[in-house]
Structure formats: C-alpha cells, structure tokens
C-alpha cells in the first residue's frame, strides 16, 4: 500500500464532555514538509495538535470522534496502543520542559525505555547535532539540563524527540517562550529537520508561519465556539490569495 500522506484525518472532532472544542477536521498532511496551524487564540489549535498523538487521553472528559490515519491505521481505533502512537509521533511543548536530569540523560531516557540497543553515546551525540546543540553542550553533557538557557532547553527537547526516531514531530508554539534570536535558531533547525521528518507546528506568530512553513491550516471558531479548519493550502497561497474571506482578514491583520 502506497501512503501518499504522512497523516490524514477524516471528520476528526474533539469533545470535552458535551462541549465540542474542535469540529470535523479533515486534512491530509504532506510528508517531509512543515505544516503550520494558525488561527486566533482559543480556536483549538493546540487541542487539535494534541489529538494527533493522543496526548489528550490525559485530559479528563475529553474524547475524540472521527478518524485519524497514520499509515492506514486509525489512531483512534480500538486496537491502537497510545504509547506506540506517541513513540511514532513525537511532541515538543510550548514551554521547554526538560527532565530535571543531566543533558545526556534527557536524551538517553526516552531511548532506553523504548528499548534502544545501539550505542547510547553515539545516539546522544547525533541527536544533539541534529538539534544544532552539540557544539554548545558537548563539554557539559553531565550537567543539569536546567543550567541551559531557554532556547537551548527547547532545542534539547527537540533533540530528545529526534532520539526516539519518530515519523512526525508535533510542535506546540515551540518558540513562544523564547527570545527572537533563539526563535530564529529553532526555525532554521526546522528547515534542517524537515529533510527527515514531517513537522506540524502550531503558532500564533503569522510571520513565523509565513517564513517557515510549506503548508498552512487556518482555524477559526464557529458560532457554537467549536473550532474548525476553514482553509488548508500551500502557505504561499494562504498568505497571498486566500480563498476564504476570514482567512484574508486574519492574515492581513484585519481580524477582530
């Protein structure tokens, strides 16, 4: 079976109890591209992102309807193991959240629990190199990850995710807690990473979406406060000649 898309959703809806937070999302994400999810705050961007690797399993009262396919397997099917899903779809969070351990351990731990049998030192080095962090930390691998700057911590979190070799990396506003220079480095890194990985990033920063992504999904809430994807297309097109009026208003800053 040939899979054209990295991940594919079909009428995916996310509910909290009786309230529907995200409604009927059907998107097909291209492999080895960066897809940005944009939209006003509260429109369910992060909720949707977390649904992609079943992180919302931990939110009490949250349940998902519809289908989400990774390689022809519905991630919300009965037989699916959420731990396996998260191992294949890694995630980088809004605020850097390294483990309170050494830099080395931050990377080695995920590999170890996932049964990595290779040479750990090499994995750590390669992951750090891929995350463009190696040169800065190679002499202090045994020091606490908390000693790093915010931007370095976030790149460490990316390295940690790369180390378990996922198919897809989800990024939830990964640069929102960082200064402009660190932000730029993360964006450069994303361009590097997309050679090997599919990246889906939530951002509230329009310029970031425009500069860094290949595809953009525009989300908006409807009258029932349920978010949905109103337009999904190549980034170029979204930012130059969007087909939806609301998208145009939003990307040109005329929104609200």
């Amino acid at each position, binding site marked *: 079976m040939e899979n054209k898309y990295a991940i594919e959703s079909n009428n995916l809806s996310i509910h909290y109890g009786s309230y529907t937070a995200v409604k009927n999302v059907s998107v097909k994400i291209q492999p*080895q591209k960066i897809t940005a999810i944009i939209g006003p705050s509260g429109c369910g961007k992060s909720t949707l992102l977390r649904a992609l690797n079943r992180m919302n399993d931990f939110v009490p009262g949250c349940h998902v309807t519809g289908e989400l396919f990774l390689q022809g397997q519905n991630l919300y099917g009965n037989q699916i193991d959420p731990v396996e899903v998260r191992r*294949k779809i890694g995630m980088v969070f809004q605020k850097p959240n390294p483990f309170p351990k050494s830099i080395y351990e931050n990377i080695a731990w995920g590999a170890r629990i996932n049964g990595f049998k290779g040479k750990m030192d090499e994995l750590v080095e390669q992951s750090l190199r891929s995350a463009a962090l190696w040169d800065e930390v190679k002499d202090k691998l045994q020091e606490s990850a908390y000693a790093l700057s915010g931007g370095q911590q976030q790149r460490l979190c990316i390295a940690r995710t790369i180390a378990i070799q996922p198919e897809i990396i989800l990024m939830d506003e990964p640069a929102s807690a960082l200064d402009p220079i660190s932000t730029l480095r993360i964006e450069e890194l994303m361009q590097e990473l997309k050679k090997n990985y599919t990246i889906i990033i939530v951002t509230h920063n329009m310029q970031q979406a425009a500069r860094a992504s290949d595809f953009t999904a525009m989300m908006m809430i409807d009258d029932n406060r349920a978010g949905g994807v109103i337009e999904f297309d190549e980034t170029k097109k979204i930012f130059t000649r969007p087909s939806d009026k609301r998208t145009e208003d939003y990307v040109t800053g005329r929104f609200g």
Partner: protein
Amino acid sequence: MKEETLNLKTLETQSFRQFDLKKKRRTGESIIQTLLFLAGILSIFVTIAIVYELGKEAMLFFNDPDVTLGKFFGTTKWQPGIGQYGIWALVSATLVTSFIAILISLPLGLASAIYLSEYASFKARSILKPILEILAGIPTVVYGYFALLFITPILKSIIGEQLQVYNMLSAGIVMGIMILPLISSMSEDALSAVPRSLREAAYAMGATKVETSLQVVLPAALSGIGAALIIGISRAVGETMIVAVAAGSGPNFSFNPLDAAETMTGHIARISGGDLSYNSIDYTSLFAIALMLFLLTLVLNLISQWIVNRFRERYE
C-alpha cells in the same frame, strides 16, 4: 567522531516503513496498576472493618436482654458489670471537657489566626507559625502530664479545696491548648482564602484594618471558621490521653467542671488497659461506646468537609 558513521535516519529514503501500532500486552504494567488500585481501595476496607467490628461487638452488647435502649440513653449510671447501662454518665464528662476546650481554643485560635493572616509581617509569621506547629506536635500524653502536674496545682491555688485532684476543668483547659493550633491554622486558611479585592474595597471606603478584618474578612470566612470549629469539637470528643490522665477514673454524671469524671474515651482506655476477657459485657460495652464515638466524629468530619468544599467553590 566522524559524522558519516552515523545517521539516525538511515532508512530515510523509505521514510514510511511499515510498523504496527496495535496494542501490546504490558503484563508488568497491568500488575502494577492492579496493585496500586488495591492500595487505593484498602482505605475503604479499613472503614468497613471499623464499622463491621465495632458494630458486631456493639450488637452483642445491645442484644443482651438486660440492656435496653431506654436504659442506655435514659439513665445516668454506668457500670455494665452490675447491670447499670446509662451512657450519660460518660457522655456528660465528654460534653463538659469538650465544651471547656472549645471555650478556650475557639477565641484564642481565631484571634491568633486573624493576627497571623492580617497583621503579622513575613518575619513574624516565620517565627510564630513554627511555635504553633510545635504545640500541635506534642504528644497528648505529655499534655496529660502537664494538666495533672502543672495546671491542676495552679487551679487548686486559685479555686481552693472544691477542686478535686482529678477534675474536668484542668483537662478541658489543656485540651483547649492542644486544639488551639488546629483551629488557628484552619481559620487562617479560611481567612487567607478571602479575596484581596474584598479587603481593598473596604480600605477604599476608609475602613481601618480592624474594621476590615472583623467586619469584612471575618464574616466572609465564617463558613471556613465554622468548619474549623467542628473539626475542633471532633478532636476534643475523641481525645483520650489528657482526660485519661487528668480528668478522673470512674464514671460520674456531673456537669460541675471541678468534679472528677470519666469521658467515653477515658473509660475505654481504662477498662481495656486492665484484664479484660473477650465476650464479657464489659468488653462488648466498650465497642458500643467506640461505635458511638466513631459515628459522632464521622458526622462532624463530614459536615466540616462539606462546609470547606462549598466555601472553596465560592471563591475559586
């Protein structure tokens, strides 16, 4: 290290390897989860065991043809060995000592809570709070020693000969000191849960600090303070060692705090400490008393929790 020796994505050209996301059997994980669940549910069994065991023995007591509910709640002499089953002989002492304890601990606890929450500087708090914590951490048997050998002699020199060596007054006072930290810390929690905006509103209308504390903050925290009071009563009713040491040994239906008398808890401690044969009426009667104690404190604790929860919802 040479870079070309490594490449994480050696399989990158065929990026979409087949893999299986089907659920794995994680036996260890399931066993652990079961064990944790058992640990969590054990507390329920403790409660069931308490109710069952106390209830079973208490039933034996009440099933004795000699024991009637009329006698139990209607008479004032307690000596199961010779057929006297008037629980009031013990309840009276419990009421008197608890009442004195609350009389002492409520105003003192509340006043210190107001001082700590509204007045004390950060530094003063950091000294005063630990003192209250130490007071709360002293074993009750030590309080018993203090009541018998310090407070009672002092009271004797004030009141004179009417005060018996063992008396409810001294035990009640010391119990009040023991409960003070509890009431204080619970009231302080209630006071500090009152939103700042309320205080600021009062200040903005020209109120002084005391006017704000007593007329705005205190009424707003009243339900939390009520919860503290109820927990305090529950603690006083269940307290054993102070009364066992200082209040007297021997049931005595009296509401005079200068008299010696035995509380429900004190009675259980004294009788069970002696030689006691299982299945005797003395033995089963203790369980009847304990069951009453348990139910009484349970109701008090539940009311208090209910108040606290309601109160919390209002401000959060």
